[in-house]
C-alpha cells in the first residue's frame, strides 16, 4: 500500500529523526552510504511516487557532507516522483555567513539555501535560523520555528525567581525580549561588544545596558559554538553583580574547547535543544540539560500534511 508520507534522514542527526518518527508512528529511512573515496551514495528503498517526503537533516558538522547528503536525498526523492519534498533543517549550517560584511566575500548561507532549492526541495523548515531575512534567499516556502517551544517549559519548571533575561550581543535582543515575556522575567539586559570583522572568531570589549545586581540571569542566544562570546558575557554579568547565570540556546555546536570553558565558567546550567546530535561528552556533562524539539517538529510535519496553520500554538 502507498504510504501517506515518508521520512528520510542522513547521518547528521538520526537520533532526532527516529524520535520524530516514533511520535508520528512511522519508520524513518536512513539511505546514506559512503564510497571508499568519500563520495556519498543515496538509495531510498521506498516507493515515493506521489508521496510527501520529509527529509530531516540538520546541516551540522560535518557541515559540507551534511549539506551534500541533504541535496542527494532531495534529488533521489524528486527522481522517484515524490509530490512534495520538505527539507527539515533544524540547524542550518553557514547561516552566520548571511551578509556581505566585507568586500569580496560570498554570502555563503545564500549559496547553500539556493543549492537546496535548486535541487528540488519544495519547502524548507528551520528552527531559530540565525537571521530571519535568510528566508528571502529562495523563492520556496521557508517556515522558521523557535526552540523556545521546547526550552520555555523546561526553564519554567526550574522556578527561577528574580529573573533577568540577557542577550550576549546586539543581534539577540529580540529573542531575549521574547523569552523575558514568556518567562515573566523582571526585565532584560543587553551585553554588547565591538566584534571585529576579520576572518575569525575574535572579540571584544564588553559593556551592558540593564541592571543585573543580585539577579538570576538567563542568557539566551541561538547558537553556542566555541562558547567564547557567551562565556565572556557570563563572566561580565557576574562582575556586574549577577547572583547566578544560566544559558538557554537552541543549537549547541560545542566546537573547540567549549566544554573546558563551560567547566571552568561561572555558568550554573545550560539548556539546549537536540537540533544537533551531541557527542557523549556533552550528553554526560552535568551542567548541560538537553531538551528535545522532536515534538515541535513532529507537530510541524503533521500541520504541513493537514494544511493547518503553523503559527497557531507552535510559534511562541
Amino acid at each position, binding site marked *: 500500500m502507498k504510504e501517506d508520507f515518508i521520512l528520510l534522514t542522513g547521518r547528521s542527526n538520526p537520533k532526532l529523526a527516529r524520535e520524530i518518527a516514533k511520535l508520528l508512528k512511522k519508520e524513518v529511512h536512513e539511505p546514506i552510504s559512503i564510497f571508499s*573515496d568519500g563520495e556519498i551514495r543515496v538509495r531510498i528503498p521506498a516507493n515515493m511516487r506521489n508521496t510527501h517526503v520529509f527529509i530531516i537533516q540538520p546541516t551540522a558538522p560535518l557541515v559540507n557532507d551534511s549539506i551534500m547528503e541533504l541535496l542527494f536525498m532531495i534529488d533521489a526523492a524528486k527522481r522517484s516522483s515524490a509530490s512534495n519534498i520538505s527539507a527539515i533543517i533544524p540547524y542550518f549550517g553557514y547561516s552566520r555567513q548571511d551578509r556581505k560584511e566585507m568586500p*569580496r566575500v560570498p554570502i555563503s548561507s545564500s549559496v547553500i539555501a539556493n543549492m537546496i532549492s535548486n535541487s528540488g526541495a519544495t519547502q524548507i523548515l528551520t528552527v531559530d535560523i540565525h537571521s530571519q531575512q535568510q528566508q528571502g534567499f529562495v523563492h520556496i516556502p521557508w517556515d522558521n520555528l523557535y526552540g523556545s517551544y521546547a526550552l520555555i517549559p523546561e526553564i519554567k519548571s526550574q522556578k527561577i525567581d528574580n529573573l533577568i533575561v540577557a542577550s550576549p550581543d546586539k543581534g539577540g535582543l529580540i529573542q531575549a525580549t521574547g523569552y523575558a515575556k514568556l518567562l515573566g522575567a523582571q526585565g532584560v539586559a543587553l551585553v554588547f561588544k565591538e566584534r571585529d570583522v576579520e576572518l575569525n572568531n575574535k572579540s571584544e570589549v564588553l559593556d551592558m545596558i540593564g541592571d543585573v545586581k543580585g539577579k538570576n540571569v538567563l542568557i539566551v542566544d541561538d547558537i553556542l559554538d566555541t562558547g567564547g562570546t557567551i562565556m565572556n558575557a557570563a563572566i561580565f554579568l557576574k562582575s556586574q553583580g549577577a547572583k547566578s547565570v544560566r544559558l538557554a540556546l537552541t543549537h549547541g555546536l560545542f566546537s573547540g574547547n567549549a566544554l573546558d570553558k563551560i567547566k571552568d565558567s561561572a555558568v550554573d546550567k545550560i539548556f539546549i535543544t537536540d537540533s544537533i546530535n551531541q557527542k557523549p561528552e556533552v550528553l554526560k556533562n552535568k551542567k548541560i540539560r538537553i531538551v528535545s524539539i522532536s515534538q515541535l517538529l513532529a507537530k510541524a510535519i503533521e500541520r504541513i500534511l493537514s494544511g493547518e496553520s503553523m503559527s497557531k500554538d507552535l510559534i511562541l
Partner: protein
Amino acid sequence: MKIFSGSSNKPLSEKIAKHLGLKLSTIELHVFPDGERRIKLNDTVVDENTVVIQPTATPVDQNYIELFFIIDALRRSGARSVCVVVPYLGYQRQDHIFRDGESVSLQVMIKLLESMHIDKIIAVDLHSIKIPEFFHIPLVHLSALSIFSDTIKSLFSGFVNDSVLVSPDMGGLRRISEASELLSGLPWISTVKDRDLDTGKIVINKIEGDPSKIKKRAFIIDDMISSGGTTIQSAELLRRNGVEEIYVFVTHAIFSEDAPAQLQKSIINKVFVTDSVFIPKEKHFEKLEILSIAQMVSEKL
C-alpha cells in the same frame, strides 16, 4: 584575466598561471572551529575575466562547497566572466540511476554549478561519453590521452610492435580506440569487469578481443584509479595470458584506501598519472610518475 585557486590543488593552479605568464590571485581561507569555511578574494575582479581552478576530488563535498563560495564571491564582486576549471569532476561516477531510489549526484552538482551563472567549464577525461550532454553551458572537455601517447612514443619508440593497448573494462573502449588512433593504430583489447552492485566487489577474468593481439608489453589506459583494484586485476589477468611488461596510464589519481601500497607491490612496472588531482607526498610511491596537464589547460584559457 585573473586566476584564483581553491585549496584542493594549488600546485597545479600555480603551474597553469605560470604557463600564462600570470600570478595567481590569492584567496584567504578560514576554517572555523565547527568546520565551516569562509573565503575572501584578495584581489579586485570588477569587469575582469576570471578563472577559478578547483578539482573536486577527496574531500569531495568540502571542495565543491568551497568552489561554490568562490564563484559566488566572484559574481557578487563584479567579475565580467567566470570560467571554472574542474580537472577532476567529483561524483562523476554517479552519472545515472543504477537502481531505483538513487540520486544522480553528478547531475545535481552540474545543475548547481550552472545555477551559479558560470560562463564556461573546463574538465579533463570525464568518466563517460554521456557526461558532456549534461551541460547546458560551454564545456571544454580535454583529454590526457595526447599526453599519454606522447609519453609512450618517447619512452617506448621502437618497441611499439611488441605492445598492445588495454582497456581494463568495456566502458573504456572509446578511450582505448582514441589512444590507438594517436599511436598510429596500435592494436587494443579489453579486459572485462563484472561488478556486484550489492557488495561493490569487482571481478576481472575475461579478455575481449583477438588473443593474437596480446603482446609482450601492455599499456593499460583508464580515466581513474580509485582503490586500484580494477587496474591490478586487469594487470594480473594480462600476466596470466603471457604479458611481460605492464605500464598503466591513468588521468585521475584518486588513490583511495591503500591504493599506493597495492600498486607499488603489484606486478605493474610503472604507473603514469596526471596532476589533475593533488597527490600528497604520503601517497607517492616508487613506480609512480606524474605528468602535468597544466600546459594543456592553460592553452584553453
